[in-house]
């Protein structure tokens, strides 16, 4: 039966070329708006290299130190808090810590890299991490390897650089054990990784170094507030997203326990969220429920407006097919079967539009990538921002799934009312086509 629907839909497309063209273009444009949202959402939330575990990640980045009723200082995590409170936690699979390019600019100023005695000293985006960082995030090492736990413990000046920087400085990528000067301090290159896009903003940098190699980061202050708060973001990899509740419970306990060791104040942390929720929370500055509602409303609006337009097109198209529906009903088709047929045919007509819309949305996302995918943090990171989009970010089953789902919803919204109205017409009227 469906084979015949496909055949008929194809014939109808051929016979009504003008309608089909308008419909495909209309659908394509309508879908592209929603697809842009879907593609951006996918790029922001899916597991995309090097951030290959986003679905199991949560970030701890906001903490307040409260003294009495009056004084409250909010910042990221300090090294003492991390060492005493976070690293001993047992629920996570791995815990990485990092100081991103924006915070590092406040600590060490703009970062410049050069070969000793060299003329070139490009401004780079710098990130300081521990060794677990390299286990959580999957970078593609062209040569060498990341610095390890021993390097971090020994505060060795090791550096991983990206391909672009290696080529800029040395004209090649095979630069293991070469010495570079980072703001005048000698570092030894231990690895070169393929360039990462600034779209993966949690790991984006040109150069990565052990946090312990920067004196201002590795020392624990004797002042309670300074040691508790700091510039660190904690990147937690859970065994499973289902561990989040258990992790939260352990985190609350750890903070509570840590507070008993403080003499002058106490820590109050913003409860961590899973990666996607946190990302949406940062984007909309609303709680999860409100954010979901806003997203749903916007999506519905984006779908409803084109659906109403397409519905008008469908209405006139359906009018031409009323005698056919009468014949089909006369020969034994019930309304339910015909409704399915009309929806299926319409979906088939919508799919080329969906493909066109998807391609158009790729073009829009690519053209507007800085606007849609850039962030304040990456803009402030220093260095030249690389907002490249890889093929795998755009072309994948999840995005196709979104596109199909959107087509399906748009199909239902735009064709169900015209189809039901056409099927409400009495068979004898349909056969006589006295519908006006």
């Amino acid at each position, binding site marked *: 039966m469906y084979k015949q629907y496909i*055949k008929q839909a194809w014939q109808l497309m051929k016979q009504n070329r003008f309608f089909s063209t308008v419909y495909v273009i209309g659908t394509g444009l309508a879908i592209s708006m929603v697809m842009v949202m879907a593609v951006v959402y996918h790029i922001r939330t899916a597991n995309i290299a090097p951030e290959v575990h986003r679905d199991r990640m949560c970030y701890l980045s906001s903490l307040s130190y409260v003294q009495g009723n009056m004084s409250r200082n909010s910042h990221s995590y300090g090294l003492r808090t991390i060492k005493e409170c976070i690293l001993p936690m047992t629920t996570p699979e791995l815990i990485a810590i990092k100081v991103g390019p924006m915070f590092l600019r406040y600590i060490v100023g703009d970062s410049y890299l050069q070969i000793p005695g060299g003329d070139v000293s490009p401004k780079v985006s710098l990130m300081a991490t521990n060794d677990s960082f390299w286990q959580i995030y999957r970078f593609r090492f062209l040569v060498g390897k990341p610095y390890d736990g021993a390097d971090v413990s020994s505060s060795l000046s090791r550096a991983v650089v990206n391909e672009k920087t290696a080529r800029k400085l040395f004209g090649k990528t095979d630069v293991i054990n070469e010495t570079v000067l980072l703001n005048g301090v000698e570092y030894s290159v231990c690895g070169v990784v393929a360039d990462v896009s600034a779209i993966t903003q949690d790991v984006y940098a040109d150069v990565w170094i052990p946090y312990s190699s920067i004196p201002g980061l590795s020392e624990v202050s004797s002042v309670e507030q300074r040691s508790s708060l700091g510039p660190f973001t904690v990147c937690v990899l859970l065994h499973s997203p289902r561990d989040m509740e258990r992790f939260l419970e352990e985190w609350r306990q750890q903070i509570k326990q840590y507070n008993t060791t403080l003499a002058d104040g106490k820590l109050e942390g913003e409860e961590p969220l899973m990666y996607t929720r946190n990302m949406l929370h940062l984007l909309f500055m609303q709680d999860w429920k409100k954010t979901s509602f806003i997203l749903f409303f916007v999506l519905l609006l984006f779908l409803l407006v084109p659906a109403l337009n397409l519905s008008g097109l469908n209405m006139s198209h359906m009018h031409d097919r009323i005698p*056919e529906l009468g014949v089909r009903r006369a020969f034994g*088709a019930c309304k339910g079967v015909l409704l399915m047929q009309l929806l299926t045919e319409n979906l088939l007509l919508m799919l080329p539009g969906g493909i066109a819309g998807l391609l158009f949305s790729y073009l829009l996302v690519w053209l507007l990538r800085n606007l849609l995918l850039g962030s304040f943090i990456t803009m402030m990171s220093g260095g030249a921002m690389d907002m490249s989009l890889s093929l795998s970010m755009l072309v994948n089953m999840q995005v196709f799934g979104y596109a199909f789902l959107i087509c399906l919803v748009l199909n239902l919204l735009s064709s169900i009312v015209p189809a039901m109205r056409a099927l409400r017409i009495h068979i004898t009227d349909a056969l006589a086509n006295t519908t006006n």
Partner: protein
Amino acid sequence: MIKLTNLEKIYRTKEIETVALENVNLEVQKGEFLSIMGPSGCGKSTLLNIMGLLDSPTSGMVEINGVNTVNMNDKELAAFRNKQLGFVFQSFHLINSLNVLDNVELPLLYRKVSASERRKAAEAVLEKVGLSHRMRHFPTQLSGGQCQRVAIARAIVGNPYIILADEPTGNLDSKMGIEVMELLHQLNKEDGRTIVMVTHNEQQAQQTSRTIRFFDGRQVQ
């Protein structure tokens, strides 16, 4: 085969009430070729539509093959029409976006019949109506007579007991009309199918086994 008892059909609008059929009592026997005649607007097509379960009477009973159809729902009516009735319309009502073979297969599409069986049955009836060489053509590529023969093939492909034909030669020239009538007579005589035909053509009516006449919604003969 078909039994209509005290049948009445009234069309009501806000302002007027039009009686289309009034107290019709009629029995059509198995294997009969009945023709219905009367002036335009006398209710003969309405009667055929009610017999074909395409329309419902305002009151009265429609019994087909011993089954009272009055209280059937849309799904039951559709299934009943599909198995027991075949339709031939004056304006053919072929689906232009389907080729001849697919048009003929149509009634079988709504039964649980495999694609290969559908194809086989459709090919057989097209052979019977002499159009096996036009199977891949589209209706717009056929003459009126050929279209009507396709419509007849579609009406008989599901082996219905009854064929209801509403002015089947009304849109055809006399030569093609004769061909179509010959085909209907062949189906009646050779296959034993019951045929009820609405016609304006006295000559065609005389060739059938019985003729009834309508005037102003009432059977007058």
